[in-house]
């Protein structure tokens, strides 16, 4: 009796183990399919395209010829734009850190019962479409816009412009990066037990010491995530430089757009896209190696 009951119980257990073997695969299947279809395959296609010749520019016929020159040409021609893109993206990310960290700190430690509302407020502007926000900024920063009018009233010299400057582009990029910076930093601050902060104060740590030696290192994973999430979209951005930067502040995204959609030079556009990807991957890897990984593994 007891033996048969035991065997009855053992049966479903092995079946369950077998089910648990393929359950994870089932769960990742939709995501995996999506990524393969819309990311891996187009990316795989990008490589042969970047090594092709345009036989007939108007009919978009491509002939694979292993043309490495596509790379040397775009690197030679667009290095200044690439550098500018990285500088703008870097500046915007740095600004976003400076703005978002204190904000996240206040939400976490002073938010109290308003915490959820404050977090929602950070995200609310992003219910407006990306393009509309950029266009709204052109009005705000325009020569007769409210910001310049106000500044002129307090003595800013005539003829100072905001629109079509690096300042405007970096400002727009920073603005877009903010929620992607605030949210992960707030979450990582949220995970620091208040008892640790008490302990740091108890061990003769003044406010600055508590921040530098406890809060900052323990929020490093969130900071690292925020930096990656801000830097990558900013470096490839098209909308902000187009609407806020004018012809002198084009970023690499604008160049790619123009190469692929206007000039119909698909191979060179593809080559440039891969160069940017390689650059960004290298940047992120170095960044995570240096700041992220040791803290990421230990929280």
């Amino acid at each position, binding site marked *: 009796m007891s033996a048969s009951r035991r065997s009855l119980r053992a049966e479903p257990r092995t079946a369950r183990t077998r089910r648990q073997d393929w359950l994870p695969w089932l769960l990742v299947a939709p995501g995996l399919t999506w990524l393969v279809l819309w990311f891996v395959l187009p990316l795989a296609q990008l490589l042969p395209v970047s090594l092709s010749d345009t036989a007939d520019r108007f009919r978009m016929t491509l002939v694979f010829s292993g043309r490495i020159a596509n790379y040397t040409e775009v690197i030679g021609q667009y290095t200044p734009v690439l550098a500018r893109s990285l500088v703008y993206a870097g500046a915007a990310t740095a600004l976003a850190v400076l703005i978002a960290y204190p904000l996240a700190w206040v939400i976490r430690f002073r938010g109290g019962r308003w915490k959820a509302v404050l977090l929602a407020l950070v995200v609310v502007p992003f219910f407006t479409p990306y393009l509309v926000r950029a266009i709204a900024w052109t009005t705000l920063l325009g020569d007769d816009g409210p910001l310049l009018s106000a500044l002129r009233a307090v003595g800013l010299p005539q003829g100072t412009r905001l629109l079509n400057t690096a300042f405007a582009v970096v400002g727009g990029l920073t603005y877009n990066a903010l929620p992607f910076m605030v949210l992960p930093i707030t979450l990582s601050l949220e995970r620091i037990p208040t008892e640790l902060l*008490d*302990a740091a*104060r108890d061990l003769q740590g003044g406010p600055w010491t508590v921040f530098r030696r406890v809060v900052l290192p323990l929020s490093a994973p969130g900071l690292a995530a925020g930096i990656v999430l801000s830097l990558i979209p900013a470096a490839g951005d098209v909308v902000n430089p187009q609407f806020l930067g004018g012809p002198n502040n084009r970023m690499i995204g604008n160049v790619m757009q123009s190469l692929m959609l206007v000039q119909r030079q698909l191979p060179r556009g593809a080559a440039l896209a891969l160069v940017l990807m390689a650059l960004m991957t290298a940047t992120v890897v170095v960044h995570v190696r240096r700041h992220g990984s040791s*803290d990421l593994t230990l929280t």
Partner: protein
Amino acid sequence: MIPGEFGVIELQGVHRRYAGTAAVDGIDLAMAPGEFFSLLGPSGCGKTTTLRLIAGFERPDAGVIRLLGQDVTGLPPHRRRVNTVFQHYALFPHLSVWDNVAFGPRNHRLPEPEVRRRVGEALERVRMGELARRRPAQLSGGQQQRVALARALVNEPAALLLDEPLAALDAGLRRTMQQELKRIQREAGIGFLLVTHDQDEALALSDRLAVMQSGRIAQCGSPREVYDRPVNEWVAGFLGRANLLADPLGQGLRMLRPEQLSLRGEAPLATEAGRRAQVEAVAFQGATLQVVLRDGDGQELVARIGRRDPGAEVRVGEVIWVVWPAQAGHPLPS
């Protein structure tokens, strides 16, 4: 403490309210140097708040807190010469054991050789020298507890504050760590202020203890005083089982601890008192037996007897004499 003597920690009329309710409701307390002092009470009695007020994490609404005679009521935690061992240890997860312990000395801006000497000593004192390179996550609960102790002691505080430090450990480890706490306190020669809800722990470790109830100190004294001569029924019951019998000599109640009662077949002698009662339950507790009885008036009596004492063989349902010395027990206000 002798009045006028210099106290390490002194509290005078300390009050702290949260949203209208008093967490700490007028506490006076004075801890002597080198004393092992416990705040004992049930959860919500205000003992942890009292500790946090002394550490500086909370400010009192009224009253004065002094450390080594100096008024520290308005000072932040980092300007107070006390250190805390937290309930969940609160070790910094991103720092090694060594760096955790060095945290305080480095904040004091001691020269690095001095930091190394002190940290090494503190880790030896809690027997954690071997594991200095580990991270807290790689340590057991007992080891984390030792590191937390070392991290507090290394700063040579005027007194150490311990917030339920052993609550998270299992029973066996708790007993070992109790002995360790006592040893470390003796060696370091500084005052320990222990917050606990465990009366056995408080009785075993303390030189003196304060029993807290609803934000007030109900009684303060040596473990023997408080256990043998509680001021009221509540304190009597919180420190252990208590038999409360009507006092035959006068008004009020007389408290007898279970170990003061004996069980036997013969009636009490002239120097004794006693009554007949029926055994309701016998609980084996290792070295002793706890016997629950009910007398003719329906009153419950609890006796704790040794395994070789008379009455150790009683069975449930048996009627037997419960006997105690006529002078035994402590009068309580009813």
